[in-house]
C-alpha cells in the first residue's frame, strides 16, 4: 500500500475524523493550526459529524475538552508549545478527572526567545501531568497513534487522557505517504465511547471534589499512577489487534539494528530518522551501532528499555530538550531504568541537540556515536555533549556584530 501524501497535521485531523470524535474545542497556534482548520472545514462542509468550537484560550480549550469528556463526549483537541503550557493547569485537572480525551501536541520550542521549530520541552512539561504520551516519528505513526491512543485512554482499566506528539515543521508540514485505515475497520477497533459515571440528570455525580487530607489525596494519586502503569499492557493488547487489522506493528519502544549492537543511541520523534542514517554509516565503518526509539513516553517503558539496553557497551541518549541545570530529561529516565540491571552498559552518554529544530548534520550525528566508541575504548566517564557547530556559533556572532554596527 502506497498511501496518500499527507502532512502530519492532516494525518492527525484525518485520524480524529476516523475516530468519530463528538467534540473538538480548539484554539490556534503555530504549528498546530492546520489541524483545527482542517477539522473546521470538514465540520462546516458536513463531512465530519462533530461539534467544533473555538475557545478564547488553550486554558479554556482544555477545560471544555475535559468537561465534555466527563459529560460523555469523545473529545479531540490540539495545541503546541506556549499553548500547552498555558493549558498546563488543566492537564493536571483533566487527568485527575480521569477524562479520556485526546490532545495532539505539535512540538515547538518554548519562549523566550520565541521560536517556531521543534524541541520537546513543551510536551515534556506535561510529563508529570497524568496524561499518557505517545510520540511519533512519521506521519503514518501520527494517524495510527491517534487511534491507538483513544482505544487505550478509554479502556476502563486506564481511563486517562492522552497526548500524541509530533514534531512541528519536520512532521506537521511535511508530506509523507500515509495509509489511512478503512472506516469500517476503525469502527471495529474503536467502538463508541462509553463514559464511566458521566454527569447525568438521572444519576447525578460530583467530579473534581476537594479532598481535605493528604491520605485521601494520596489515594487518588496512587490510583492514577496505577492506571497509567496499566496503560502499557492495554496498549500492547490494542497494538496487537491493530496490527492484525491494519498490518502495522507498534510497541512501546522500537529497536533498529539492535541484534548485535554494542553502541545504542536512544531517541524519540522525527529526528530518529537521522539517528537511523547514522547507525547505517557507523555500520559501514564497522562499528556495531544500533538505535532505540521511545514511542511511549508515559507510562515510561522501563522494562523494555532495560531489556533492550542490557549488555550493550555504551548507550547514548539524544535529548531534544534541556532541563537547565540538569541536562537532558530522557537521560535521567533511561539511566533510572538501567540502574538495577545486572549487565548494564558501562556508560551512558548524554547528548543534547536539535533545540528549536536546529538542524543536525551527518557529522554531528556521527560524533555522538564516535564519542560512545571513545568512551568505551578509553574507559572515560562521559561528559555531556551539547550539539552546536562552530560555523553556527560564528553566524550568531556575525549577526550580533552587524546589529551592533561593528561589521
Amino acid at each position, binding site marked *: 500500500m502506497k498511501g496518500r501524501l499527507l502532512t502530519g497535521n492532516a494525518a492527525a485531523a484525518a485520524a480524529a475524523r476516523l475516530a468519530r470524535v463528538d*467534540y473538538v474545542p480548539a484554539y490556534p497556534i503555530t504549528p498546530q493550526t492546520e489541524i483545527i482548520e482542517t477539522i473546521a472545514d470538514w465540520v462546516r462542509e458536513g463531512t465530519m459529524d462533530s461539534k467544533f468550537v473555538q475557545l478564547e484560550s488553550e486554558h479554556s480549550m482544555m477545560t471544555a475538552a475535559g468537561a465534555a469528556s466527563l*459529560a460523555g463526549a469523545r473529545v479531540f483537541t490540539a495545541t503546541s508549545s506556549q499553548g500547552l503550557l498555558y493549558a498546563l493547569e488543566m492537564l493536571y*485537572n483533566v487527568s485527575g478527572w480521569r477524562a479520556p480525551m485526546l490532545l495532539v501536541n505539535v512540538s515547538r520550542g518554548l519562549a523566550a526567545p520565541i521560536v517556531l521549530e521543534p524541541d520537546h520541552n513543551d510536551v515534556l512539561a506535561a510529563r508529570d501531568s497524568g496524561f499518557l504520551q505517545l510520540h511519533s516519528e512519521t506521519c503514518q505513526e501520527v494517524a495510527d497513534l491517534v487511534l491507538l491512543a483513544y482505544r487505550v485512554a478509554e479502556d476502563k482499566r486506564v481511563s486517562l487522557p492522552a497526548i500524541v506528539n509530533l514534531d512541528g515543521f519536520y512532521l506537521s508540514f511535511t508530506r509523507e505517504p500515509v495509509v489511512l485505515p478503512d472506516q469500517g475497520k476503525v469502527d471495529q477497533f474503536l467502538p463508541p465511547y462509553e463514559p464511566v459515571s458521566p454527569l447525568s440528570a438521572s444519576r447525578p*455525580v460530583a467530579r473534581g471534589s476537594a479532598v481535605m487530607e493528604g491520605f485521601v489525596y494520596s489515594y487518588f494519586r496512587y490510583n492514577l499512577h496505577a492506571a497509567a502503569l496499566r496503560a502499557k499492557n492495554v496498549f500492547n493488547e490494542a497494538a496487537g489487534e491493530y496490527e492484525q487489522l491494519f498490518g502495522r506493528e507498534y510497541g512501546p519502544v522500537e529497536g533498529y539494528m539492535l541484534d548485535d549492537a554494542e553502541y545504542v543511541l536512544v531517541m524519540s520523534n522525527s529526528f530518529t530518522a537521522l539517528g537511523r542514517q547514522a547507525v547505517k554509516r557507523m555500520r559501514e565503518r564497522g562499528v556495531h551501532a544500533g538505535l532505540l526509539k521511545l514511542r511511549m513516553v508515559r507510562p515510561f517503558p522501563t522494562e523494555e528499555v532495560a531489556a533492550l539496553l542490557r549488555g550493550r557497551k555504551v548507550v547514548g541518549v539524544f535529548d531534544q530538550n534541556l532541563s537547565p541545570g540538569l541536562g537532558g530529561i530522557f537521560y535521567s529516565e533511561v539511566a533510572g531504568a538501567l540502574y538495577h540491571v545486572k549487565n548494564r552498559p558501562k556508560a551512558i552518554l548524554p547528548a543534547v541537540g536539535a533545540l528549536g529544530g536546529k538542524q543536525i548534520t551527518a557529522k554531528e550525528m556521527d560524533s555522538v556515536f564516535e564519542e560512545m566508541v571513545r568512551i568505551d575504548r578509553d574507559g572515560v566517564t562521559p561528559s555531556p555533549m551539547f550539539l552546536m557547530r562552530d560555523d553556527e556559533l560564528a553566524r550568531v556572532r556575525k549577526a550580533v556584530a552587524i546589529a551592533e554596527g561593528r561589521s
Partner: protein
Amino acid sequence: MATATRFRTLKDMPKEDYLSPGNTLCAGCGGILALRIFHKVLGPKVAWVNAAGCMTVSMSYPLSPLKSNWLYTAFASAPAGAQGVRDALDVLMAKGKLPASEDLKVVVVSGDGAAYDIGLQSTSGAIDRRLDFYYLCYDNEAYGNTGFQMSTSTPYGSSTKTTPATAAYPLGNTARKKDLFEVWRAMKAPYVATLANSHGLDFLRKVERGSEIKGPRLYIAFAACPTGWGFDTRNSVEIEKLAVQTGVWPLKESVNGAVRHTFVPRALIPVSDYLKTQERFNHLFEPSEKTEAIDAIQESVNVYWKEAGAREGFEVKLPGSSSR
C-alpha cells in the same frame, strides 16, 4: 416580559430542597443561601460548574451536600467548563446518543474573585459564543476563601487583608468596585440581574425570568460574609436588606440590554447605617470618623440613584451627606 409568574408571594418559594442540611461552609454564609434558593427554582436537573472559592470546599470527597451534578474546574475557567458540558450534551442529543430527558441546566457558580478577576477572560468567551448557561456569582466583595483579600469587587473604603487600613492608608481599599453588571450588559448578555437573599420574591422571579431566556445569564447575588465582613452570623440577611435599603446594592435586571430596577426604595437610609454594621468599615468611624470618605460613598450612591431615576422615571429621596 410581563409573563405570568409562579411566584406571587414568598410562600410560593418551592418546598423542595436540593441542598442537604449541613455542609462545611461558615454559619450565616450568604453565598450558600443564594445557591439554595437558586436551585429551588431551577429544579433537580442541574450541572454546577465551579471555580475555586468557598463553594469548592463544601464538596469534600466522598460527600456532597447537593442532589445534583457538580464539577470543580479551576479558578479561571469555569465558564469554559460550562461550555464543554453544554456542548457535549447538545452534540450527544443531536446524535441520538442521549435522550432529552437527560438534559441538564448548566450553571457556573463562583465567587467574585473568579467572576470579576481571574475568570473574566473565559467569561467573555462564553458570552461571545452565546453559551446557553447561567452564571451565579456569590459576591462577598473579596477573596473570602483565602481569608479576605481585595478583589476588584471590593468596595471603596473596605479594609481587607491586602488593603488593610493603617495610619498611612487610612481608608483601606481606595479602588472602586467594578461594575460587573455593566460589563456583561456591554457584551450583550441577554439577561443580567442582581439578587439579595433578603428580597426573596424578587430573587425567585428573576431566576424564573432568566430561565425563559436562552444564552448567557448572569446573577450577581449579594453574599453577606460574617467571617470576612465581621458581623454576627445571625445578622446576615439583615445586612443584605440594609445594603438594599441604603441603595448600596441596587436590585435590578437587564433584559436584552434594557435595565429596570426591580426594587426602588422610596427614601434611602444613610450609608453609614450600613457601614457601621461591619468590622471591615470600622476604620471609617474609629478612632475618628472619616467624614470625607463616608460622604464620598454616600455621594456615589446618590449619583447612582439620581441617574437611574432619570433614566427610568422614578424618584428616590436621598439622604444628605453625613455632615449635613
